[in-house]
């Protein structure tokens, strides 16, 4: 029993030699609570369940890009990196570089982008917060195409009318955040910091 729990929580066995066993039990409980909490916060998807159901079956982005008119009116969840925010009379227009989404609907792997799209909203989007290269996930309705020149080409941007918008917290630079405290725990820094609420870091 004791050796079993010692195997699961390696560091606790170390404590066991210093402090009493009761104390290590309390620590194990605290750690467990912390793990449960961090896994819960990490799993919160950016888009509501209601909308995720509405967006089924998913529209593949490359098909949307080639034949946008076929999908007009359908709901879709897309994400990517902000390229530009344009504030206009009575609304804002965001240009996004699409990127694949993970299970939390968080965009990843900029290099795997299949193209660009536009996000339209009737709200004011603060350009000092929605800055270039930040990650964003949007749930909305496909509302046509906007044809614009892009470096000598003519690019057909699918337009998404916003229903839900999620701006991801800026990722922390792991090297600058090196904290020896955490090394006692066998390098758990990576998943925890990633799931933490927005700390602004530049």
């Amino acid at each position, binding site marked *: 029993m004791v050796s079993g729990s010692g195997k699961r929580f390696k*560091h606790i066995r*170390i*404590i066991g030699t*210093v*402090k009493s066993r009761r104390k290590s039990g309390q*620590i194990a409980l*605290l*750690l467990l609570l*912390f793990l449960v909490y961090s896994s819960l916060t990490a799993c919160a998807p950016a888009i509501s369940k209601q909308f995720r159901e509405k967006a089924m079956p998913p529209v593949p982005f490359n098909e949307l890009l080639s034949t946008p008119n076929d999908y007009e009116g359908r709901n879709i969840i897309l994400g990517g990196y902000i390229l530009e*925010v*344009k*504030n*206009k*009379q*009575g*609304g*804002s227009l965001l240009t996004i570089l699409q990127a694949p989404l993970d299970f939390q609907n968080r965009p990843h792997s900029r290099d795997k982008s299949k193209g660009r799209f536009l996000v339209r909203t009737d709200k*004011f989007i*603060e*350009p*000092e*917060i929605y800055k270039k290269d930040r990650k964003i996930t949007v749930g909305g309705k496909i509302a046509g195409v906007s044809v614009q020149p892009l470096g000598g080409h003519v690019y057909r941007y699918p337009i998404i009318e916003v229903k839900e918008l999620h*701006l991801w*917290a800026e990722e*922390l630079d792991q090297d*600058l*955040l090196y*904290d020896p*405290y955490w090394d*006692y725990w066998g390098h758990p820094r990576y998943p925890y*910091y990633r799931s933490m*609420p*927005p*700390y*602004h*870091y*530049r």
Partner: protein
Amino acid sequence: MALKHTGLFLCIWLLLFSLGCATGISRQVRSQVTYTGPFSDVQKAPDKYMGEIVILGGKILNNKASQVSSELTVLHLPTGSGNRPKDNDQSEGRYLIQTDQFLDPAIYKKGDLLTVAGKLSGSEFRTIGGFDYIYPKLKAIEIKLWPKEDHNYPRFHIGIGVGKTF
């Protein structure tokens, strides 16, 4: 034994308490504050709150300084302990700080965090891109500029201690 520990904890607690309470705005000005509600309400209808004295946090977006006056464009930020602004995404809008003092643009520069106590003095429409934005205007009474932090992660850990570290 128990008494000894209590004394130690009290000392640590007092130390943390005194550090945490380092405040940006003087007590005298803090006592004059008349409005402590959400800034988003002010931003929506600035003229309704004319004359109210508020304390707000923010980040400098622009500094227009001349010999006789200065105007800061500020992105609102929520404040934490000691009225220090928290540089997160929870902004409720923008506002202008106007003062008849010279705020050196080399000191009050873009991206710096500040806390301001001031009197709301109306509003002004300006465009951001093509969007007509209402800026509430604030006559500054006191401005506290916060030093830049090297690291913005929490420096106090909630310790689940390993005996060896203490």
